[in-house]
């Protein structure tokens, strides 16, 4: 039943690796994206948080996702708590669904990840709508591209986690 992830579940992953990937994702998010590329930019932070909360829920919980969201709020100069609330919902989705999602391969996970991402983007847009009174719909293009890079990003993070684990156990 656990087709791809049986080996990965039990192996611990270094907290340093989690930290490094989150910092790298923040960096990727704050590259100088402009215009249509900004709309199409995948939310790397959300994807990395979702990956770790799915595969290593004991390493990355809702509290940590919230803290990363606060940092993202400062980087993006959005309202305090806006990203934090969205990433809290994201990590909750990851925590609740991790048993179910681990049954699938990365390819099959994409559709369900897309659902979680739409929810996350929706929370962010909802807060923006409540405060500023309008929503830019092109913003939601980001969840599509985010879902599309779930497979390469997931296999990359999986490979990194595996290599760390092998080194430790050899």
């Amino acid at each position: 039943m656990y087709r791809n992830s049986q080996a990965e579940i039990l192996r611990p992953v270094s907290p340093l690796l989690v930290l490094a990937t989150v910092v790298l994702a923040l960096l990727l998010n704050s590259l100088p994206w402009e215009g249509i590329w900004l709309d199409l930019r995948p939310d790397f932070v959300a994807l990395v948080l979702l990956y770790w909360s799915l595969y290593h829920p004991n390493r990355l919980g809702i509290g940590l996702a919230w803290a990363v969201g606060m940092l993202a709020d400062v980087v993006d100069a959005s309202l305090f708590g806006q990203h934090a609330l969205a990433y809290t919902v994201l990590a909750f989705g990851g925590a609740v669904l991790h048993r179910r999602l681990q049954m699938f391969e990365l390819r099959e996970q994409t559709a369900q990840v897309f659902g979680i991402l739409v929810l996350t983007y929706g929370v962010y847009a909802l807060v923006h709508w409540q405060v500023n009174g309008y929503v830019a719909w092109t913003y939601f293009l980001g969840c599509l591209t985010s879902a599309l890079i779930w497979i390469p990003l997931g296999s990359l993070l999986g490979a990194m986690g595996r290599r760390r684990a092998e080194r430790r156990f050899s």
Partner: protein
Amino acid sequence: MDSTQQVPFFNRGPGPVVRLVFFAVLSLLLLFADARYHYLESARSVLSVVLSPLQRTAAFPGSLWRQAGDFFVTQDSLVDENLRLHRQHEQDAAQLLQLQALQEENRQLRNLMELPARAALKTYPVEIIYTERDAFKRKVIVSRGEDAQLKAGQIVMDDGGIVGQLTRIYPWMSEVTLITERNFPVPVQVLRTGLRTIAFGAGDTSRLSLRYLPVSADVQSGDLLVTSGIDRIYPAGIPVAKVVKVERDASYPFARVSCMPVGGVDSHRHLLVVSGPGAVAVSPEAMAGAK
């Protein structure tokens, strides 16, 4: 019996729903405090100091690309640019001579009429570090902040005209809201007729619009809009935008006027922060109170 089933084997702390509710409520409280009362600016500036290396690293590939571009500038284009700048300089010099004479004349006339003098503009150069990574907003971050005694509310312009306004000051950088931000108001005056109105940012593109202008108002496409200076924030007489289209539809009470900003709102790397507003309007009551 059922009490034994309730005992968990491992203590893992509160469940995900409890955590979700806790952090969601915390986020909402922070959102409320930030949006309504602006309580958290100091926390934000502390965190921004921690994160500023990250942000400068993220801006690095772009600046590397530009520097490489600068390095491979050809001799030809440099000669061209030099020639163009020389010509521009000669033209400007002639106009500047006239300007000095006019300023002197203006000062004398203002003295005669007992009007308050127009203060000279003081400018401080800043560089754009990066633009805001949020599809909803039209903001840029510039390289100086509290270290250069910048203050929120100061005007940012380039050689063409107004670009935006400083809205948030961090220790080493500050945030500029561009005039194209949705609903961002700039009090303007049509240069040709002296008509006072307010230009609002359109948000999505590099456009501004004039609202609440009656259908009969004397506005044509091609009119230059300059700051009116009656708001005590914007110095008077700085170009803001050019009218590109005027729609007069009798079924609406107001004319629809769309304008293009004349400053390089989306293009430049170096900007000027203007300190010291123009002639500050003083109400008669305040003057009476001062006496």
